[in-house]
């Protein structure tokens, strides 16, 4: 028995008012979907939360037409300073309803309430607030005077940060003067649908934001719709590739935020306790369902043993369990399907001779769970060092020199993020220069901010989200 027990301190569910079923949000109204409704479940309990409509071809067309109408008649012609006010309103409402959003996100996604409450939802509000201020300052966005919005944006987002990804997509699109049709992920549609309610509360003109729920097919219909001007996708590299093929030869602008296999590089002179925290934050934050997760630990051989000892001790204090419990550090895997993928890929680690170590924690009987796990003795040739696991599984590799660290870090088709831990300033800058990745976290990891551009090199996609560069993805220069 531990001397000191933490409470189950569950956040109350009562703040969330779940309906039995949800429709599509098109032209300011909730409407039925033409497809086959599907269920969304709480991954921590397998309890069905609600039934959600599936958008079919006619629904997608209806949504795009509504967005086009709103773009032509209302949102496009509206002065930026007025658009800004709507976005500020949305930012404020999101902050006011933050607890409701946090609880709902945790229910639908399985992430710990600690994260939805302290990371996701505050960033969502911040994202709208930041972009709201841009709406009447587009002349300063770096594209010269009077940049133009693109039109109707088709946006498809993943299940790992359902509401945050919505904010990353919707806020800059609207600030720049576009209208949107957004498809949330099949397993996490609920916060997007609650966001529709926020749009109504803010009296956003109908059609400016449309939300069409569904699975992959609905997304395909949306991005291939001929009247869409801009496609923005966050998700897996294979789907991103398919979308790039789909829009080839069209006039559609495309930004893609895809997979990653980030190296988190720890030098012997690192601030060791913070580095261990950074490793933990890098791979176990959000159960490792993070495209920029530090899933490859590259540790200098001279301190490898020490770092691993410290890491294991730290991992032993991670609390896995009820995501609604405020003391939970590691929540549920988002779906049975994802759990299967993690298990399969981790099994290749065993098969290929890497040594597995998992944090000693009891997994709940119901729901989808995976204990925080590290593999040591991993080489670049292992599948677990090359493929994105998208789960709480860390591959540990070692290096001897900075050059070797760079070579291993860059030896991947991905290039989304990287971490560097050293107390030597000039080495940080040298590493940052050489790493082929869109975000480099030095002596920190997994930090996000609406003012900070985020996005990948190589097969991690193209375009940036966040900051001036993210805004520019929704604008074109006047010619």
């Amino acid at each position, binding site marked *: 028995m531990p001397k000191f027990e933490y409470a189950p301190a569950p956040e109350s569910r009562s703040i969330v008012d779940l309906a039995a079923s949800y429709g599509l949000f098109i032209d300011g109204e909730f409407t039925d979907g033409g497809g086959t409704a599907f269920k969304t479940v709480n991954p921590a309990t397998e309890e069905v939360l609600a039934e959600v409509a599936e958008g079919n071809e006619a629904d997608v067309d209806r949504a795009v037409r509504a967005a086009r109408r709103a773009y032509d008649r209302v949102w496009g012609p509206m002065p930026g300073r007025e658009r800004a006010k709507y976005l500020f309103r949305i930012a404020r409402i999101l902050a006011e309803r933050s607890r409701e959003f946090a609880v709902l996100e945790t229910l639908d996604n399985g992430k710990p309430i600690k994260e939805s409450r302290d990371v996701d939802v505050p960033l969502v509000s911040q994202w709208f607030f930041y972009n709201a201020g841009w709406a009447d300052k587009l002349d300063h966005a770096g594209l010269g005077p009077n940049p133009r919005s693109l039109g109707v944006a088709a946006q498809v987002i993943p299940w790992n940060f359902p509401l945050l990804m919505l904010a990353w997509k919707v806020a800059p699109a609207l600030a720049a003067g576009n209208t949107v049709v957004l498809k949330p992920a099949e397993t996490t549609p609920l916060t997007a649908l609650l966001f529709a309610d926020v749009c109504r509360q803010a009296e956003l003109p109908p059609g400016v934001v449309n939300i069409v729920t569904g699975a992959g097919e609905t997304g395909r219909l949306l991005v291939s719709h001929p009247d869409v001007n801009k496609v923005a996708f966050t998700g897996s590299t294979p789907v991103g590739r398919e979308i*790039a093929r789909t829009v080839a030869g069209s006039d559609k602008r495309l930004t893609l935020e895809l997979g990653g296999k980030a190296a988190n590089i720890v030098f012997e002179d690192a601030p060791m306790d913070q580095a261990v925290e950074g490793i933990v934050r890098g791979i176990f934050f959000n159960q490792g369902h993070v495209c920029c997760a530090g899933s490859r630990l590259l540790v200098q051989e001279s301190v490898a043993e020490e770092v691993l000892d410290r890491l294991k001790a730290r991992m032993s204090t991670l609390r896995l369990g009820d995501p609604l419990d405020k003391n939970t550090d590691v929540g549920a895997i988002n779906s049975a399907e994802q759990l299967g993928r993690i298990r399969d890929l981790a099994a290749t680690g065993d098969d290929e001779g890497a040594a597995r170590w998992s944090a000693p924690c009891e997994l709940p009987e119901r729901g989808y769970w995976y204990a925080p796990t590290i593999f040591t003795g991993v080489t670049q040739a292992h599948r677990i060092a090359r493929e994105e696991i998208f789960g709480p599984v860390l591959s540990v590799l070692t290096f001897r020199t900075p050059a070797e660290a760079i070579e291993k870090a860059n030896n991947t088709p991905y290039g989304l993020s990287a971490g560097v831990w050293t107390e030597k300033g000039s080495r940080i800058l040298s590493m940052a220069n050489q790493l*082929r990745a869109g975000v480099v976290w030095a002596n920190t990891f997994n930090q996000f901010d609406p003012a900070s551009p985020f996005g990948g090199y190589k097969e991690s996609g193209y375009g940036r989200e966040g900051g001036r560069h993210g805004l520019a993805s929704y604008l074109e220069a006047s010619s």
Partner: protein
Amino acid sequence: MSERVDVRKTYKLFIGGAFPRSESGRTYEVASSRGKFLANASKASRKDARDAVGAARKAFGGWSKRTPYNRGQILYRVAEVLEGRRDQLVAEVRAAEGVTERRATAIVDAAVDTWVWYAGWADKLSQVAGNANQVNGPFFNLTSPEPTGVVAIAAPQQSSLLGLVEVLAPVLLSGNTAVVVSSYERPLPAITLSEILSTSDVPGGVVNILTGDIAEVGPWLASHLDVNALDLTGVDDADVARDLEAEASVNLKRVLRPGTPTAQALTRITPFLEYKTVWHPIGV
């Protein structure tokens, strides 16, 4: 007495700073706009494209690591040499494009000026395209532009020199290396440019020029996993352009779609940049 017989030249490809023949051994006849035979050009093949990509990749590390000031100087030096070969270029543009001497002169002048304009961007790019970001926390946060890597370029078919400069210079200044497929019917100014590059300070492999048919070589470049970006500016056939763009998705190449190049514009530089954002805590 017979008239002097001119020395005809069989032009070769420009790969890795050298002038090899096409490994396929193929050549094709290049004629002036009036149909007069001008020269034989090598017709680049799949393997030539592969070699050119290899050379461009090899050169990327060194070229991208030079200081922007140094790249700017090297590129400016190219403009100096271009200016020195003005008469030859005017003659070639005249022959290729069938324009008056005056027009050809204006074109060559514009090409030199455009080259100078882009050369001057090298050490200003990060100040204009980068950003210091103020984030909501104790972090230093800086976004800087970086070159995307190896860029395959379909040069314009009609504008044989100016069009080429307008697509090539903006790619190079940021530190990218290039594999260019020149105008098929009007390749001679491109070949002269490669001779100029080889005698200037541009390191071998930074620019590789293939004469040949984009429809034949393009798919190999579009599908090549070690090419990072594809500039389709010079692809006139919409179906070919679509197929190349679709093929480029294999490794998520950055693609610039066909169109008339805008002379001297930042928007020609930015499609071939990556933005890297570096975070660091601020503490004592």
